[in-house]
């Protein structure tokens, strides 16, 4: 994850927001909310629920802003809070079902072998179609850049489960993309 240096304006806004300055808080919210809603939407299909979870995340951001202390990326910090909030929401809704039937080894080198450019909406549709467990591990690993160890801790599963979930998610995505390409080719 890239470390983005804090803009001078951000430092001042954060300092003011710690002192419960509503205007500063609103500015920070307007600046980061669209991106964070995008993050939450990756995990939660329903946009309204995704926004609700995002608001819970921002409430925690502003309640614990004094613990940020301007170290590292502010966006990265907020993003982690959002991811945690999404996971706890999925856990509350009992969305996690990790099929532990067959553990797959040596999955780390494997990646989807299709050189296709997809648009955001297409990507989101493909991700949404994945089973909950596959989807969460895939988003955490491929998009957020979490390690299997971190995913295992976050989802309270074993590292090997995380690896096999990712393997299955990639397999499923690859099959779907190929199928999509074939349909397009046929249509032409």
């Amino acid at each position, binding site marked *: 994850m890239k470390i983005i240096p804090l803009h001078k304006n951000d430092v001042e806004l954060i300092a003011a927001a710690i002192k419960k300055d509503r205007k500063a808080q609103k500015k920070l919210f307007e600046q980061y909310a669209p991106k964070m*809603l995008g993050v939450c939407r990756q995990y939660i299909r329903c946009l309204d629920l995704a926004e609700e979870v*995002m608001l819970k995340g921002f409430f925690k951001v502003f309640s614990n802003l004094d613990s940020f202390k301007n170290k590292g990326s502010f966006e990265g910090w907020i993003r982690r809070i959002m991811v945690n909030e999404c996971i706890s929401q999925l856990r509350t809704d009992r969305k996690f079902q990790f099929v532990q039937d067959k553990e797959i080894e040596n999955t780390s080198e494997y990646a989807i072998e299709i*050189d296709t450019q997809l648009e955001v909406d297409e*990507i989101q549709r493909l991700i949404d179609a994945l089973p909950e467990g596959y989807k969460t591990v895939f988003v955490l690993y491929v998009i957020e850049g979490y390690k299997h160890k971190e995913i295992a801790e976050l989802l309270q599963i074993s590292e090997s489960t995380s690896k096999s979930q990712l393997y299955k998610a990639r397999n499923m995505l690859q099959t779907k993309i190929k199928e999509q390409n074939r349909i397009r080719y046929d249509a032409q």
Partner: protein
Amino acid sequence: MMRNNLEKNIRDKMKARELKPSANAWDKLEAQLDAAPPKRKLVFWYYAAASIVGLMLIGSVVYYQNIEGQPQLVEENVQESHTENTIDVLPKTLVNTEFVVEESHSMPPEDLEETTREDKTAPIQYAEEVEQKSLDIVSETTIAHEDISPEIIEAVEQDKNYVDQKAQEVATHIKSLQENNGEVTIEEVEELLEKARREIFLKRTLKESQVDAMTLLNEVEWELDKTFYDKVFDALGEGFRKISTAYTERNR
């Protein structure tokens, strides 16, 4: 690089993606922030809760210490009553300890010096302690006898008087035999004593509500205590020392 292209494409596009929140999103958040109590107040309440818990802990410790104090008193009482009940057991323990001392005496002389010095003092001390305890217990039990009903005391008193009376009778009889016949044989004395014994036994048995076959069988075994014979010979006086000595010799 080729094979990661799709995933890189997914990552870049998804990371850059922005979704516009609904128009009232900030208002909702602001309402939540306004509703939440300031953090410092929360900290205060944490301290308040912690101090209440602390006070409760101290309170419960004091409370349970008081409660624990009471059974200790009860336990002491139990021990005291236990010693009262072990009157019969105490002499046994005493006998056992004495036995140990005797055993150590039978050891070879070279071992004797060390072991007896150790073994002997300890049981003696113990015996003294036991004796003292027994005395205490005896005095306690004597006091306890005051609780016995007057009817029983009267009955015992009557029995004592009857035995004294019988002893006097036997003595008078022996004296009259001596005066009439010039001498009294040991057989005659024994016969008189046996008669008195039976009479006393019957008197005591009849006081009880029922007389069964077993009681009458026991009569053969039943013996008067030595004090009765002493009483008879005391009543006879100096002149009958010879006969009393002869009787004691015979029944030894």
